């Protein structure tokens, strides 16, 4: 079904659990919205919060970070580091004023194809209801106004916000 607004969702996943879980959803032919783009990491422990900012900046409307369940990490403790890092990062986002509903953290194991579908569908629907992510786009335009680039298109875009 087509909607007026199709959000861009980026999923940062670990290769051992969630990527395999998404594969399982595929082999089980489970259907879910096509808005998600998967970026594979060896472990959620590798995911730098900067990537999340970068994704938002590049037009993502929602970001999903997903890895192994606590205790199941292939690298023993990477997901614990990730969990702690994102707890802090969410506080920072909240402080900055970004709506936290756009960022989701979840555990999806290699056996949970169904859970992957659920998480992706839920996040897509939620972000769709929230509308496009503008905070970073505004910032980008603001930056442009500060003198670096000054085009009529940008001026118009700025006036339209």
């Amino acid at each position, binding site marked *: 079904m087509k909607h007026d607004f199709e959000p861009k969702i980026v999923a940062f996943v670990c290769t051992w659990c969630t990527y*395999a879980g998404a594969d399982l959803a595929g082999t089980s*032919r489970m259907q*879910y919205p096509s808005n998600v*783009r998967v970026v*594979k990491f060896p472990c959620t422990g590798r995911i730098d919060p900067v*990537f999340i900012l*970068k994704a938002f900046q590049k037009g993502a409307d929602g970001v999903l970070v997903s890895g192994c369940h606590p205790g199941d990490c292939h*690298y023993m403790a990477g997901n614990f580091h990730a969990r702690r890092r994102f707890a802090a990062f969410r506080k920072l986002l909240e402080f900055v004023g970004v709506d936290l509903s756009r960022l989701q953290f979840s555990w999806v194991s290699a056996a949970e194809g169904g859970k992957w579908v659920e998480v992706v569908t839920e996040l897509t629907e939620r972000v769709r209801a929230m509308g496009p992510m503008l905070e970073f786009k505004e910032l980008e335009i603001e930056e442009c106004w500060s003198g670096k680039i000054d085009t009529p298109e940008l001026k118009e875009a700025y006036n339209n916000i």
Partner: protein
Amino acid sequence: MSRIGVFVCHCGENISRTVDVERVAREAGALSGVAFATDYKYMCSDPGQNLLKKAVAEHNLDGIVVAACSPRMHEKTFRKAAQSAGLNPFLCEMANIREHCSWVHEDREEATAKASEIVAMLVERVKKDKKLAPITVPITKRSLVIGGGIAGIQAALDIADAGHQVVLVEREPSIGGHMAQLSETFPTLDCSQCIMTPKMVDVANHPNITLHTYSEIENVDGYIGNFQITIKKKARSVDMAKCTGCGICMAKCPQKKIPNAFDRNMGMRPAIYVPFPQAVPNTPVIDRENCTWFKTGKCGVCQKVCGPGAVDYTQEDELIVEKVGAIVVATGFELYDITEKPKGSPIKGYGEFGHGKIPDVIDGMTFERLASASGPTGGKILRPSDGKEPKQVVFIQCVGSRAREKGISYCSKICCMYTAKHTMLYKHKVHDGQAYVFFMDARTPGKGYDEFWRRAVEEEEAGYIRGMVSRLYQKGDKVVVMGSDISVGVQVEIEADLVVLATAVQPRQGADTLAQKLGISYDKYNFYSEAHAKLRPVECATAGIYLAGACQGPKDIPDTVSQASAAAAKVMTLFSRDELEREPIVAKVNEKNCVACFYCKKVCPYGAVEEKEIRDRNGNLIRVVAYVNPGVCGGCGTCQATCPSKSVELDGYTDEQIVAMIEAL
């Protein structure tokens, strides 16, 4: 990198049914830096791979993206193909347009657009890919086996028979483990000692096996192929080289009233002792806690009577360092003890069974010793309180096991079978006796197991009562067992002479501490976790460490022996090469930027980060930086995400590669 080739696979109809593959190839061809793009029905097939190789040569490609199935499926295939075409295999990426696209989206337009975008992301990524060379590490072809039960013994013998050196470490003074304690074994009722002791002797005599009994693992360093193990050899107070095993010291020791742990505290032993007559090595050990010499400084009888002068009170614990390439962990199990509530354990205890205060309520292993010909009663089944022959015995199953509310939810697996065996052994020895079994389910899935259980029920007439026991208490010299028979819906009360509890199988105490030393993972019950429950059941997630036996979960003897041999086979596979090749996905430190905060060292789960000193030509220390040992690095990348100065980079997952993908969104 600017000459990328894109190969879009139809996967028969799996992809092409929902994705317009020709359009994906066309759109990929229009991307900047893409020199060639095509589609083919089966890219992984031989002609498909040839097409890829030919294109690399013809179009002088310096990077390829295969848009097909999951990289978990065919990444190796295509990397190999790339390699044979003269490309570095790590310049080949896979865009997963099957599992993550065609199979999960029905709308052709949507799926095609998504597939194109996935391809575009991977094209950007491959541009930033670097040539990586496989890392080789030398292998020390010796192995360590921790635990000298049947699992450890089997693994050690298999590896040693293959011609490799084995170091076997056992915590107790003798090898043999629980199997040496058993009377008969199910489902054949053959004598445990008869099949066990020859193997124990084989271990002691094997030229390739170094046996360290009464020893524990102190420290583990290193990584697959190159472990360095520190073993603490506890002071035996007897010189193993001099002792002839004559046994005079034990006979003359004035201290004789120490409960024998091997006989579940039913028999007595002296302070200088061997755990059981067939012990290997047959060298006694002085139990310093109970020895009069060590307590008061007076006695010294054993030293006086020892002909060869082997008794040495001054012996001290010694540390031995062994270098090995592989480790087999076979630490086994112990039975849940209802007499005490273990500290820090999730288990809530069994007050209703008298907390083990009633002397005639015993556990399965104690019954095993009673029934054993080498046991404290010489094989006669006599109850512990007054030595009378019990005429009514109640066996209770699932004590601790399968009781979520008590803290353990797993099935201990062996109890159904050993209880059936106990009822038989009892009936064979006390012909007019009656055995009752309170059970919930009878779980007998092994070869010949169900037949065995039926024999116990039908031929040996064990009274199986489906239901749990609610309470038991002492009444005179009887133990009254109150329970219910749920198959007929009545309350049952039996005045038993002896009650045997099939208590839960648990990992050895200290299993978690050992796991932390080894760097392997364990579950909430402290059972060790295998790398993959189905496809890698004997390997740990930590490379070079293998599991055998009940330390991984409850197991019977056939399963334990099979797994031990499997672990040995894995070790031999590792040892079949001189060098180990591993994926070059490892972290590297940019020494110029490193500020030596060592956050990376703190977060590294493998302990791969070391402190490296940088010195000038004259040997003066300039500064200290982090260094990642590529042999130890597991490639998780946690260090990179943690590094505040961005000085660590994980090959294959560099910031550049990831950001390139995000920018292509």
